[in-house]
């Protein structure tokens, strides 16, 4: 099973020090991403989804556990090998304006990855830059000599995507790529990502807090809560028949446009998200869960397969 994963996370833990306090933003998370698929990673703020994305590109690497890319463990690679590996993995961030250096021109921003990876020929660089700009539906003639502040947020995100594409990676981490964009622009970027994925045979990890967006773009979805993985499975299954009470509550709390003929599942999750510094014992969701029992307090649930391909970490999963 493991071999066919392009990217395989095994028991990944990411720890940080913040103002003298040590805490784990991600604890013991394992999942794999198949070649060519899009895995959606959802959760609320502080659940560790961004930390996972960053630990995959080794910025910073996980403190415990393994991350295998094409079977090679990333943390064992030498600096030079890691540098070569970076061509295969790129990342797109949430804030497109902040992820472009305001003092550099688009041409320099886009050629930077090529120069770092040792491409010297000017003509070749220019060609690649024009190629990727075309790929993200931007006109190279009018864009290469401008600086980021001359573009709108959506256009900046296109430039970021172009920068990620220029090294022809196999895998891209999309860290909330549409969260800071307006809805009409958001749809353009999502469609673009879908297109590029098909054309360039990409594998995506799509991180977002927006459940509808994740459902739309993902083949499979992983749900995180407070640094732990609660549930993972095929996108359709997760949304139709969530097993974890948290997934159920999360989906239910999304307000959707009311049409006459659409059914609405109204659920409201009570309480607040506990602090990562001091997480609850046992199941981390128990403080907000209506199904919680004594067992949840004392034993941490393991991730187990309930339906085919659908894993859940809950002692009392929902039944259908």
């Amino acid at each position, binding site marked *: 099973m493991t071999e066919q994963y392009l990217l395989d996370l095994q028991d990944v833990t990411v720890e940080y020090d913040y103002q003298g306090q040590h805490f784990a933003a991600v604890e013991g998370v394992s999942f794999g991403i198949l070649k060519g698929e899009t895995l959606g990673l959802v959760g609320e703020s502080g659940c560790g989804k961004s930390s996972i994305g960053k630990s995959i590109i080794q910025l910073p690497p996980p403190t415990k556990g393994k991350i295998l890319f094409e079977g090679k463990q990333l943390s064992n690679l030498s600096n030079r090998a890691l540098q070569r590996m970076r061509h295969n993995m*790129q990342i797109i*961030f*949430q*804030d497109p304006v902040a992820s472009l250096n305001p003092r550099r021109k688009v041409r320099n921003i886009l050629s930077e990855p090529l120069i770092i990876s040792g491409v010297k020929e000017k003509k070749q660089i220019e060609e690649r830059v024009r190629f990727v700009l075309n790929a993200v539906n931007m006109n190279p003639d009018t864009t290469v000599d401008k600086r980021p502040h001359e573009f709108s947020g959506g256009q900046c995100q296109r430039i970021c995507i172009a920068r990620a594409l220029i090294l022809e990676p196999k895998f891209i981490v999309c860290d909330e790529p549409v969260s800071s964009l307006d809805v009409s622009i958001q749809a353009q970027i999502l469609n673009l990502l879908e297109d590029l994925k098909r054309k360039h045979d990409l594998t995506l990890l799509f991180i977002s807090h927006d459940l509808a967006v994740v459902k739309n773009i993902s083949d499979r979805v992983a749900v995180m809560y407070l640094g732990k993985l609660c549930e993972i499975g095929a996108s359709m299954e997760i949304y139709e028949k969530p097993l974890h009470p948290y997934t159920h509550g999360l989906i239910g709390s999304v307000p959707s446009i009311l049409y006459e003929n659409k059914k609405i599942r109204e659920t409201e999750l009570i309480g607040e998200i506990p602090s990562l510094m001091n997480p609850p014992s046992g199941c981390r969701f128990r403080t907000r869960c209506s199904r919680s029992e004594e067992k949840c307090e004392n034993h941490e649930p393991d991730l187990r397969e309930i339906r085919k391909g659908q894993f859940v970490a809950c002692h009392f999963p929902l039944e259908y």
Partner: protein
Amino acid sequence: MTNITKFAQRLGNIPPLVNAIFTLWIPAVWISCLLAMVIFADLLPLYDPFESDFTALKVRGSPEFWLGTDVLGRDIFSRIIYGSRTSLTVGFFAPVCGMLIGLFLGIVSGYYRGRLESLVVGLIDIILAFPNIVLAMCILFFAGASIVNLIIVLSITSIPANTRIARASTLTYAKRDFVLAARAQGASHLRILWREILPNIILPQMAYILSFMSIIIMIEGSLAFLGVGVPPPTPTLGGMIAQGFPDINTDPHITFLPALFLFLTVLSLNLIGDQLRSRVAVRESAI
């Protein structure tokens, strides 16, 4: 209904009472003229600043001596020009050295953080613990007062402020996602410092240099006034002021003319520096 916003509507630097002619162009002309006279002083038809005319002690301004003569009958105008030469030399090299060192310390400590940062912050605290003029006085008096020593000492005193500014802007830029993106592409730390961070902080930093120049010129004047600057008979503005001070009730011009020159020079530098800073700030906010 034009004043809905009663509160501050304009951020940024000092709004000038008068327009840019007074806050930018006149100061710029003043500094340029002074600079030209200071550089070409030897070629200009000036009196010898060292030569005393004992027949004309403490005279007021006249066609012969434009600004009068001092206690020893030396031409004040000529001495002011040669004195400004000292001030401007020190006032140029010390802030530039201080800025280069401060920029380096600030960027490195702001980017790498950790122990290095604590070390740099500690170093700054140590330098700051010695009041600048006191530090300069001691070193100059015991090590000998020369222009080079003066420049070294005053460079040291301008390191803390430069380091703080550079560190603060490095901290804000190092957090930005484009630095992370560069790392994801495999850029080395050195390349990131050079290509991503430095271009962003160098301009705002440069905008401060005129203000630092004015501060250094004031300190140089103070040291000369206390008699620990470049030793007499080399003319210095501060030294001239000190020399005229005992006769202030009878011949105030000996004291006040060099003081006025010093004041106008510092004021001009401040005004131009402020304009420069606000222009850089506008460009920043446009980004």
